[in-house]
């Protein structure tokens, strides 16, 4: 197992302290508690056009924004002479530097804002590869010195030739597919019960991951407890979605297309709200970042990943059992199958939909935490996953819970296995291509059926 190393702050590395806790002195406590709430409210207030102008003169000036990082892997050690380029959000280059003998680099910034850091892949020694893309976009606050991580792999995972690499990728793919499935079950059930193509479902994933991050890292709570709490938050957000937005909209008779665009608005709102509150960085959970890979003969897996697989399987089996055996599960399938018929059979459709939203929210939150475990927590992680969820759900057949499961697994495995033939940083493109191929061959999905006209 390898992972990128990074460095931050003006005081050098303090071993033993997880870096997300490090903040430049004078910035006060990390964004949590009241401050977050107030920031949220402020943003909302402004968003609703309540902010008013008032004149003033003071102009605060703090200098010294800086980006820094370290390029190294566990096998190769620090890597020297790797070119790092920092560019502003509009594409203009700020500075281009090379790493020193400790693999470190630092770039002084002209001011706060969004910056893109690009690592020149050609400078990496043989055997060291990018684990994802060679760039990172970070938002730097005023006076902040921010660390930048660019994930690297030194090949210790994929070593051992094509066959073994394929097995490794298959296992990774199954893990990833299970994760997509968990997030996508809710998406599919919501579509089935309400007809809504919910483009804001990815944000439920992000909210779960970020909520767990705040509870875990800022609150210092054990990750397992934090995950459970995050699922509660997810369920609550799901319920809020339904009660405050979608149920009133259904009552108003808002069309499905209009509802779809509303969900996009909600997605934008939530996504960028999360970015304002949480920031543009990516950070790991506390206590799980350094998980070492355990060798299982033909493949290796970190304990965190193993736990992720086990949790996914258990949860998905529970969901299936619930759909199959319990009263509410059957009601869900009935509403999914034929809403009017279900309603006329005395099923409280609104209650069923509320439960679907809560369940979907909780599962998405759990998926978010698991994704955060493997890929770190980022403000747009859910949106990126959303497209793969759509691919999975479409593959399985829109609106069917089991279809979502099967489809997501296939998408996850396909995305990981595709790196056998295509570069790692375009693997999502392969998944999206698969989606389009499915649409050509079998638009109703594996488990779906054709609709009648007229």
């Amino acid at each position, binding site marked *: 197992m390898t992972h990128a190393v990074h460095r931050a702050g003006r005081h050098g590395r303090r071993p033993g302290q997880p870096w997300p806790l490090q903040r430049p002195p004078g910035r006060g406590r990390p964004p949590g508690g009241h401050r977050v709430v107030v920031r949220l409210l402020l943003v909302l207030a402004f968003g609703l056009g309540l902010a008013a102008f008032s004149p003033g003169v003071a102009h605060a000036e703090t200098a010294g924004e800086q980006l820094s990082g370290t390029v190294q892997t566990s096998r190769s050690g620090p890597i020297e002479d790797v070119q790092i380029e920092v560019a502003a959000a509009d594409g203009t280059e700020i500075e281009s530097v090379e790493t020193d003998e400790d693999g470190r680099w630092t770039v002084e910034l002209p001011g706060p804002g969004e910056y893109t850091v690009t690592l020149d892949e050609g400078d990496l020694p043989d055997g060291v590869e990018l684990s994802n893309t060679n760039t990172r976009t970070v938002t730097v606050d005023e006076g902040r010195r921010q660390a930048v991580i660019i994930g690297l792999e030194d090949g210790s995972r994929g070593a051992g030739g094509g066959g073994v690499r394929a097995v490794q990728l298959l296992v990774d793919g199954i893990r990833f597919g299970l994760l997509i499935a968990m997030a996508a079950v809710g998406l599919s059930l919501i579509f089935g019960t309400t007809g809504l193509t919910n483009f804001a479902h990815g944000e439920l994933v992000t909210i779960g991951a970020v909520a767990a991050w705040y509870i875990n890292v800022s609150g210092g709570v054990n990750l397992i407890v934090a995950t459970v709490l995050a699922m509660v938050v997810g369920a609550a957000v799901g319920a809020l979605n339904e009660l405050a937005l979608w149920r009133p909209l259904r009552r108003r008779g808002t069309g499905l297309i209009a509802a779809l665009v509303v969900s996009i608005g909600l997605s934008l709102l939530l996504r960028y709200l999360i970015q304002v509150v949480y920031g543009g960085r990516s950070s790991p959970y506390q206590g799980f970042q350094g998980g070492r890979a355990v060798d299982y003969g033909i493949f290796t897996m970190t304990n965190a990943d193993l736990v992720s697989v086990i949790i996914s399987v258990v949860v998905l089996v529970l969901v299936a059992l619930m759909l199959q055996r319990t009263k509410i599960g*059957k009601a869900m399938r009935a509403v999914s199958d034929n809403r009017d*018929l279900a309603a*006329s*059979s005395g099923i409280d459709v609104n209650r069923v939909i509320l439960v679907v939203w809560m369940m979907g929210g909780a599962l998405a939150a759990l998926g978010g935490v698991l994704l955060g475990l493997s890929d770190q927590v980022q403000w747009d992680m859910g949106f990126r996953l959303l497209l793969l969820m759509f691919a999975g759900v479409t593959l399985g057949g829109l609106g069917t819970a089991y279809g979502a499961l099967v489809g997501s697994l296939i998408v996850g495995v396909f995305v990981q296995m595709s790196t056998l033939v295509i570069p790692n940083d375009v693997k999502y493109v392969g998944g999206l291509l698969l989606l389009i191929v499915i649409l050509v061959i079998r638009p109703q999905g594996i488990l779906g*059926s054709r609709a*009648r006209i*007229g």
Partner: protein
Amino acid sequence: MPADPTPHGATASGAGTSGESGYHPERAGGWTSGDAPQRLAQVALRDLPWEVGVAKPDPAVVVDGVTRTFGGLTAVSVDHLEVQRGGITGLIGPNGAGKTTLFNLLTGFDQPDTGTWSFNGQSLGKMSPHQVARLGVVRTFQLTKALSRLTVLQNMLLGAQDQRGESFFRALVPGTWCAQEKANTEKAMDLLRRFKLDAKKDDFAGTLSGGQRKLLEMARALMSDPQVVMLDEPMAGVNPALTQSLLGHVKDLREQGMTVIFVEHDMDVVRDISDWVVVMAAGRIIAEGPPESISQNQAVVDAYLGAHHDAPLTVEEEDQVLAEAERTIAREQGSDGDVLGSERGPERTDR
């Protein structure tokens, strides 16, 4: 040319195959002639045996061995069916008998698993809906498809065929299509007057009542100068006052020489206007013959007429479907009944 509003006037397009039949309307004035109905089809069909798949003297539509299954359910399985040209053929049967599916298959909206069917000897298999329509076979839908945010007149104009201005590049040069548009508008206004919708020509179609939408949909179909008109439940949801008017219009289509196929549940309507009735049940044709033959047919009585006669079948059928679904859910729920509507339980035993 604009003075001739009949579907078989000089503007008729794609109608080249129809010339030979001789069931043409008299002329333009034929629109309002109701008092001297030409029931040529009825005459031609009078002596035919009342049996399934019987050959008609002058068939417009011929169906052979068409089957369509949804999953394990056979929705349509028709061995042989001929539809007499220039007549009104009623298609009846309980809900789920496959009537609408047959309509969908004939008009290209659905593809069958097997079988062939033809119009004027030309095979329609593998044709898409717009190709079928261009041949002169137009349909309406069970749930009216008025184009809500277009005006009534725009709805009508859409029905006209071979419009030059519907091509992307010619659309940019109004000179190429203005004259045709004007002629079409006059034709549309004639039809609207006939269907008593001319006062509403600038209203959005979405503001019309259900019955008016049915009328509009029929009028719009007529804009395309069809040879075969397929009406899927034209009277459903129409108030009684409009029903008579609609019936008159359907009869007029026959006077115009069009072949009419319609799906209907109201047996009085079927008896009133049909020249020939085809009965479907469970995807098969179980009987065909003149309207008066149907109530005597044992297969039909067995299939569904026996129990309910003139009652509107839709409601009954829905109740049955619902009751069936309830039973299924009840089985799954075990004995627990609070998710179920209890008020429907006794009803199904009453009937």
